[in-house]
């Protein structure tokens, strides 16, 4: 029998109940998704069963306390505006997404690379293996990059992506999202994640979002509509700050 949404809903609920009960009993809050999260079927064979081995502070020579750097040669001015990469304008709801890249002590991560990729307004990626029957947009590739400024701020102009179907179970749909890939000052702060849009009705059905079992953590993946960021007669504005996890700031400082 094909796996239905209701099968997945019930698995999601079981995982959520188990997590909430554990936290109520004193277990630590999990800020990141479970790697072993069966409702997301692709995770079954792709998560380690052994615990991670901790590399603890104290050795400033640890290579992962430093990280890659990028500069003006690695981006062009056009890279942060995904609506001007082709001859014509892409179809869809034009928007700007901006926010700050911070470490857990609230310090801006300056001059660092932020990369994004996303589906078009019809929910289709410009990727050959994505073949569901929604139109490609010849004026939209859906790939951008930029460097954060001195306040750690990034900004992209793009169009709002559509939701799209996927093969996890029958009638599985991903809520609309933008993929982000970011770097901190330490390689150990590396992050790839997805930004969602407010009040998407698909949130509760999506095992990828629900793999983050902590509700407050899930909310941190949802951008805020910010009217002050909207540009008159041009675009909708969304604000989304990114906070990088990783080793303590002190340890990173020592590694520099």
């Amino acid at each position, binding site marked *: 029998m094909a796996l239905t949404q209701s099968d997945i809903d019930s698995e999601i609920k079981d995982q959520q109940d188990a997590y909430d009960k554990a936290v109520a009993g004193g277990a630590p809050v999990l800020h990141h998704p479970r790697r072993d999260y069966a409702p997301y079927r692709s995770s079954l064979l792709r998560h380690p069963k052994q615990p991670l081995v901790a590399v603890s502070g104290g050795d400033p020579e640890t290579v992962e306390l430093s990280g890659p750097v990028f500069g003006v040669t*690695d981006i062009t001015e056009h890279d942060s505006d995904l609506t001007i990469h082709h001859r014509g304008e892409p179809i869809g709801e034009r928007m700007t997404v901006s926010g700050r890249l911070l470490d857990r002590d609230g310090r801006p991560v300056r001059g660092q690379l932020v990369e994004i990729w996303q589906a078009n307004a019809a929910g289709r990626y410009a990727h050959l293996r994505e073949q569901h029957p929604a139109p490609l947009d010849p004026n939209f590739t859906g790939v951008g990059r930029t460097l954060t400024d001195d306040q750690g701020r990034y900004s992209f102009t793009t169009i709002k992506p559509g939701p799209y179907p996927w093969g996890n179970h029958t009638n599985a749909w991903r809520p609309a999202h933008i993929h982000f890939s970011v770097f901190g000052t330490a390689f150990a702060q590396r*992050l790839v994640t997805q930004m969602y849009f407010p009040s998407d009705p698909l949130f509760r059905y999506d095992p990828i979002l629900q793999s983050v079992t902590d509700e407050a953590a899930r909310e941190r993946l949802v951008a805020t509509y910010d009217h002050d960021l909207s540009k008159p007669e041009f675009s909708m504005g969304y604000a989304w700050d990114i906070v990088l996890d990783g080793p303590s700031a002190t340890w990173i400082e020592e590694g520099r």
Partner: protein
Amino acid sequence: MAERLLPTPSHTVGPFYGHALPFPDGSRMAPQGHPDAISLHGYVFDGAGTPIPDALLDFWQAAPDGSLTGAPGSMRRDPSTGGFLGRNGVDFTGYGRVPTDADGHYALHTLRPGNAGLPYISVCVFARGLTHHLFTRAYLADGPDPLLDSLPAERRATLVATEGANGSNRTYRFDIRLQGEGETVFLEFQ
């Protein structure tokens, strides 16, 4: 001290990053034609022992002189065409990015890292189905090391690349097993 901000959760890289994240010369960290270039290569396997054709690996390492400052220019862009220019063939940026191919294989061409202690290349693994990336290290030599020495022998071996594969003393084999028998040691930095 102020309370620390709560981190943004990780998410899987998904299946559709292939037109977005890989870049030309991502695997070519060593300047072209450099006489001391080495290759690190291998397969990424899932828990059934099947090679993973849609994994993405990020690499970070010290320069041959031990420097950890890195350099810009890993993914130089061409402002006139909007395409990529490739690396400049001179600077060593310390950063590489390689997607596995249809066989689940990757190859990185780099210079021997000059970090303190045993030389190692730090690896960050992303894949569809992997909700949160995994860090590991490819050690290019075995010997005394605080991390390796803390592991049982069979787990230690998963972090040490095998020298001399393909009949070359400049080629190192380093497979990554996400789950099951011979599961690679994955790291967290606290």
